[in-house]
């Protein structure tokens, strides 16, 4: 019973917050709803026994990606009136796309109800389990069967990083005073100060 209750709670919240992402007028609110949606999706993952994926979802999407989203959206100064004007012009197109996607979803749900979706190989048998837990299974697949693609996914991230640096990094022409920590730490009081005991009225030689 608890399972069912939890499922409906998470599912309803995912859908509701998903809707709020679109409906919220303030983009910061949209991002926050998105985070809630991620979070509840992670809850759903836990319910189907994929706790590792759930944790990754929270760590990667909620903990890092969405923070950066929020960071950027908070910095933007968005003119809502202008946004809405463009929205009305493009609304028919958007509505058509939405209808198509809705049809897709209905199709998917309908198909699922009559049992067409088989989560396994074409002959209906599920993929063999390689280890005892989720983590071991995923690890064995990523570093075994999908090793090459996994490594290439790493190269994709590297390319994205190179791209970001190539497009944004600028060597500043002006000379900047860089902090040399070793030098700072190695500096002793004797290097910088000198004790003098001048006679009264004599002053010091600088």
């Amino acid at each position, binding site marked *: 019973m608890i399972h069912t209750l939890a499922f409906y709670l998470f599912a309803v919240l995912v859908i509701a917050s998903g809707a709020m992402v679109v409906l919220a007028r303030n983009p910061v609110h949209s991002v926050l709803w998105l985070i809630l949606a991620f979070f509840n999706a992670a809850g759903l993952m836990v319910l189907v026994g994929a706790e590792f994926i759930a944790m990754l979802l929270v760590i990667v999407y909620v903990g890092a990606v969405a923070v950066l989203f929020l960071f950027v959206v908070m910095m933007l100064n968005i003119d809502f009136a202008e946004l809405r004007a463009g929205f009305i012009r493009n609304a028919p197109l958007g509505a058509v796309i939405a209808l198509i996607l809705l049809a897709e979803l209905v199709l998917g749900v309908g198909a699922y109800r009559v049992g067409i979706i088989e989560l396994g190989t074409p002959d209906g048998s599920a993929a063999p389990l390689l280890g005892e837990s989720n983590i071991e299974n995923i690890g064995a697949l990523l570093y075994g069967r999908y090793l090459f693609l996994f490594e290439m996914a790493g*190269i994709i991230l590297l390319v994205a990083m190179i791209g970001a640096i190539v497009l944004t990094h600028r060597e500043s022409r002006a000379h900047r005073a860089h902090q040399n920590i070793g030098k700072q730490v190695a500096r002793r009081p004797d290097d910088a100060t000198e004790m003098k005991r001048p006679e009264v009225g004599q002053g010091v030689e600088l």
Partner: protein
Amino acid sequence: MDLTYSLGLVIPELVLTLSGLVLLLVAAWGGNEASKPVSIAACVALGGAFFLTAPAVCAGASGPDTVAFFGQLRIDAWAGLAKLMIYAAAGAALVVAPAYFDRLKAMRPEFAILVLFAALGMSIMVSAADLLALYIGLELNSLAAYVLAAYLRDDDKSAEAGLKYFVLGALASGILLFGMSLLYGFTGTTSFSGINVAIADGLSGGQLFGLIFVLAGMAFKISAVPFHMWTPDVYEGAPTPVTAFFASAPKVAAIALLARLSLEAFGTQATAWQQIVGFAAIASIVVGALGAIGQQNIKRLLAFSSINNVGFILIGLATATLAGASAMMIYLAFYVAMTVGSFVALLMLKDADGNQLETFGDIKGLSTTQPALAWCLLLIMFSLAGIPPLMGFYGKLVIFRAAVEADLIALAAIGIAASVIGAFYYLKFIKVMFFDEPVDAVKGKSDWAHWALLVIATLVISPIAFLGTEWLGGLAEAAAAALATAG
């Protein structure tokens, strides 16, 4: 199927990966002074990959021996032939890039590295026999391409091109992924052969939707109509060497991938997609031909020309036969030569200060001021138009022959009619270069590398190349025969 054997099959990819990583370190420590050595080393790496790939192509590798990594990749003659073209085109882009960027003081070593990784992504694309490999290869190529398009980051047009390409590319990737998830959901597998088995008894609604979305996503990548809108802007805005690269290598990769996907994954349901591909082919030919007519900017014109050419290539796919696939490969080989040649010629149009000239107004009367350049450009344009003694005609011929053999006579007829319209704007080059008053704008000198590339490209499309068509035909036939042989 152990890992060592698979790794042995992907040695060219490993060469590209490792050299890319090593050169990245060189670039990080060497700074901008390392640009030239890094470019040369990248060319060498591409050449190495080229010669490591060539034996498999000549041997016509096919069958279960070409399956790597549990069926995720197929290193067969089809992939090999496409890779040879990709490596050659990428190498050409690397050769012409330094001169272009040096003048703008924008040459940085990362250019060569991005091209290397893009070539790596394309090799994975053409070898992909699994939806996951398809997507990984496509993204690797695309991400590098977005950055390359915006490489002149201080130039508004280049930045615009990069942004447009990125936003629309991301959308296309989303469509593709959506289709892939539907396919996976409704067939239960991501491997091409598995999908083919699963849909053998007919397509369910979800599978059909998945197929259409995947094809739409791919159509964006090859800029086939109706997903072509980004092409002229991106081609015009991107730096010319990058445009040369975009118009050649990724087209080969995406088309080879599309052909493998269609024939291996959806081969048992060819009727379902033949009409879609046929429509995209005709629409691309017509839009490409009509759109090019009013263009004053040569880069935009070449963008429409590439849309037009993709249409012709898609006719080969619409036949859904191996003969059509082999015709596509032949057409692609000449298309790459023509594209590289035309962009190299475009790069050689410089004024006395070395600034690039890109409009028709600048090449008026080029035949009197720069006769050699004018004649090369003329031959390439005639070849693009499909004027008989040149190899562009041969490419169209094999495509139409395959179409007629597959009883797609209507498609072939429309194609021929449209290529007549297309001939108009290619002929405009003659009028402008040979009969207009000379403006004598083109004065800049070009180095030997540009001339060498231009001459090679011109020779490949010249009638002399008829001597090699039998050999090329054999290679293409073996390559097409390798499709759908893994079982």
